[in-house]
């Protein structure tokens, strides 16, 4: 097990190294002149030169590349030309918002999808099952950004039901920063009003973000349940007079959850990708929005930073899921 983890971690490092190289090379293809942007529209050539030096853009590519790794070792990811802050500071500031959104959305998906998946399996080929199939197939086909706009149109604009965007109301002071997750912080500090406000703000974006995930989790859960339900021990459990609900809840679901977990872990990474669209629509101040704005400005250090951060998240989540899988299912052996 230990060896397995070390091997996986090594692989993660190797992959990250490759990822940085790929993105770094891509970024230097860009024809633009970031220094000019930083210097402002009216800057003279001399002023642009000052900026170029400051951002280290006057050095040869290979030196920039090596110094990026050197900086990385000390937690320095370079500076954003657009925000003029260190990328690492920006990430620290924006990531909690994305993390909160993604995790909340994942929880929402689980809460909605697992019962539905179970029901579909239990009432196989009945109306609910068909309805859920149609729903999940169309869930994958709905453009997330469009769904977001339509929900905004109806829930926020027409009926004034939920706020349009943002993380908190304008005048709501954010809770004391402990975890930087507003929902958690406001609960920890017992700030009920802020909690409600944060919850109202997160519902729409989280729902949109989990929509495609819902589809796949329902399907996997349903298939696994069907598999388990046909096994001997379930049949014998029923034969021994254990109630159906108990059989399903206690025996079948537990076994079916293992593969579902894998799917959920995978989904975490995909959701991080989806934040690009969802955060853009809902003006959610996270790293997805940060990445989009940086891309539009040809501001590359932040893009590399976001790519790295999401890559790490993605891979570590997969590793954790694999490990949990092993704990839940003793048949799995790590090599």
């Amino acid at each position, binding site marked *: 097990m230990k060896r397995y983890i070390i091997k996986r971690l090594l692989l993660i490092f190797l992959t990250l190294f490759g990822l940085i190289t790929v993105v770094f090379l891509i970024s230097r293809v*860009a*024809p*633009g*002149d*970031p220094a*000019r*942007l930083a*210097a*402002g*529209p*009216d*800057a*003279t*050539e*001399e*002023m642009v030169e*000052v*900026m170029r030096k400051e951002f280290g853009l006057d050095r040869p590519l290979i030196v920039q590349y090596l110094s990026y790794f050197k900086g990385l070792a000390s937690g320095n990811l370079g500076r954003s030309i*657009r*925000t*003029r*802050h260190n990328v690492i500071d*920006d990430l620290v*500031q*924006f990531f909690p918002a994305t993390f909160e959104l993604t995790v909340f959305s994942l929880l929402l998906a689980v*809460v*909605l999808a697992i*019962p539905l998946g*179970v*029901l579909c399996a239990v*009432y196989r080929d009945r109306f609910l099952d068909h309805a859920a199939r149609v729903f999940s197939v169309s869930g994958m086909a709905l453009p997330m950004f469009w769904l977001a706009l339509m929900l905004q149109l109806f829930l*926020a*604009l027409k009926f*004034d*039901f*939920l706020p*349009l*965007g*943002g*993380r908190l*109301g*304008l*005048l709501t002071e*954010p809770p004391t920063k402990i975890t930087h997750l507003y929902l958690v912080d406001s609960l920890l500090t017992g700030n009920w009003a802020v909690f*409600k*406000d944060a*919850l*109202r703000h997160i*519902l729409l974006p989280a729902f949109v973000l989990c929509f495609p995930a819902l589809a796949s989790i329902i399907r996997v859960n349903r298939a696994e349940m069907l598999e388990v339900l046909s096994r001997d021990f379930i049949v014998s459990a029923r034969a021994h007079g254990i109630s*159906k*609900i108990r059989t399903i809840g206690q025996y079948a679901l537990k076994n079916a959850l293992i593969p579902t977990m894998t799917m959920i872990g995978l989904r975490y990474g995909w959701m991080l990708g989806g934040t690009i669209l969802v955060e853009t629509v809902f*003006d959610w*101040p996270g790293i997805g*929005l*940060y990445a989009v704005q940086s891309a*539009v*400005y*040809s501001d590359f250090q932040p893009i590399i930073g976001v790519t790295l951060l999401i890559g790490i998240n993605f891979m570590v989540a997969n590793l954790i899921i694999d490990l949990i899988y092993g704990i839940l299912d003793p048949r799995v052996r790590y090599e």
Partner: protein
Amino acid sequence: MRSKKWCLMFVADIGVIFLLSGMSQTLEIRDGKKILVYGARQPAPNIDPSQYYDWSTRMLQQSLYDALLKYVDSPPKVIPWLATNWEASPDAKVWTFHLVKNAKFHNGDPLTAEAVKFSFERTLKIKKGPAWMLLDVLTPEGIKVVDDYTIQFTLNQPYAPFETVLPWWYIMNPKVVMAHEKDGDMGQEWMKDGDAGSGPFKKKRWEHGVLYELEAVADYWRGWENPNHIDGYIFKLIREASSQRIAIQKGECDIVEGISPEDFDLVAKMPGIYVSNDPGLTTFGIKMNNQKGYTKDINIRKAICYAFDYDSLIKIYNGNAILEDSPFPIGLKGHISLKDKIYRQDLQKAKEYMEKAGYPNGGFELEYVYVQGLEEERKMGLVLIDNLGKLGIKVKMVPLTWPNMVARGSKVDTSPDMIAIFATPVFNDPDVVAYQYHKNSWGKYYGTAHYNNPEVWKLTEQARVIADFDERMKYYEQIQNMILEDAPEVFGMQYNRRWAFRDYVKGFVFCPMRFTGEIDMYPIYIQK
């Protein structure tokens, strides 16, 4: 029966959502203070007056800092601010300013000539932000403290527009700035988010990417004119134009900028909202590459000028724009109207010029480069496709990010055939626009046409060193005529500056010298 349990779960979910709805937000008054919310689309990541400016940044700078002089009103005029009065030598080389005696910084330090000297030196040395305005004419050695409340600038060369630049050079507290110096950076790192000013507002809450909150300085040295002045304001980032509109409509914001022309018209009709509508100085033009490709030929350029449907520019702004009638913006000091000579749509003439150029049926393609995501520029490109199609010219629309666009425009060889440029004169003097056609402006965003007329350049150089304005005017009249004749660009329009206000927001003073969304918050007050 058995599914009831599951169903209950869903009902519970939906119930939570219902419970949460129906809350509404009240703004304006918090703890008895009048806090105004300004909805803006552009963040202000660096508020150091020596390092950077754009409209959002400068709006905050104007609140936090004071300058020697200040721009107010429309047409714009320069009024005394930190300086009570000033005199210039007859050759416009030596300028002496007398300061007010009661000005003090936010930490209580008095604002003296020493601070003025420090601030100017800092900007000149750092060479960022507004430095370009004076880099050619002023060196740190030319700044002299005469006494605590008198400062003298000796310029390298006569420069008549000097006083029109000064409102953008804010005065910083040397003690605060230098206390945060790190590795000889003159406090640059700290000043990005720092406050070393003396202005009517001071920094309160700074959440990058979300909002900036400022609070009024109760004992501001200049005092407050209206007892109902705001006690602070929140500069709230709302990136989507449609969200901006909703925010003003619902009263979540008290002032918003940058919503679409259609939406402005819409909210103007709503109760409780008024929309300001004032002619701006920002010009829109389509600069053509004067030295390369098809547009090198003046006949092609003129054909394009005659083919363009100028009225559609007005339509894009729903009537809230005026067409330019000279290379200089209407309303700028030194502008003259060339109504009879300016290009207007005339397909007959356009075709004649195409014939003259040797392309009676067109048959070539031109690039139109514009800034990614700028709605109006995109629309104008669509108009261009339609119009030039009639001359047999195909138009390819190329959206670029701002830095990529400027990078392409910086060299004759890569500068696109046509490029959409909004340009705002930074100070109120004809020189600022005339100089955009000078060789020294080649490669800057407003110099992408690479306009080539040494005669115009010579006149521009001569005009800027003359002290007497009437004398200078003769030059500028000639310059405007000559540039128009050369048709280096499609002279477009000037759109009106518009903001939507809740009706209790009073005291707004429009000044076209400020940038697109920038409002001076000092005179604003609330009256319900």
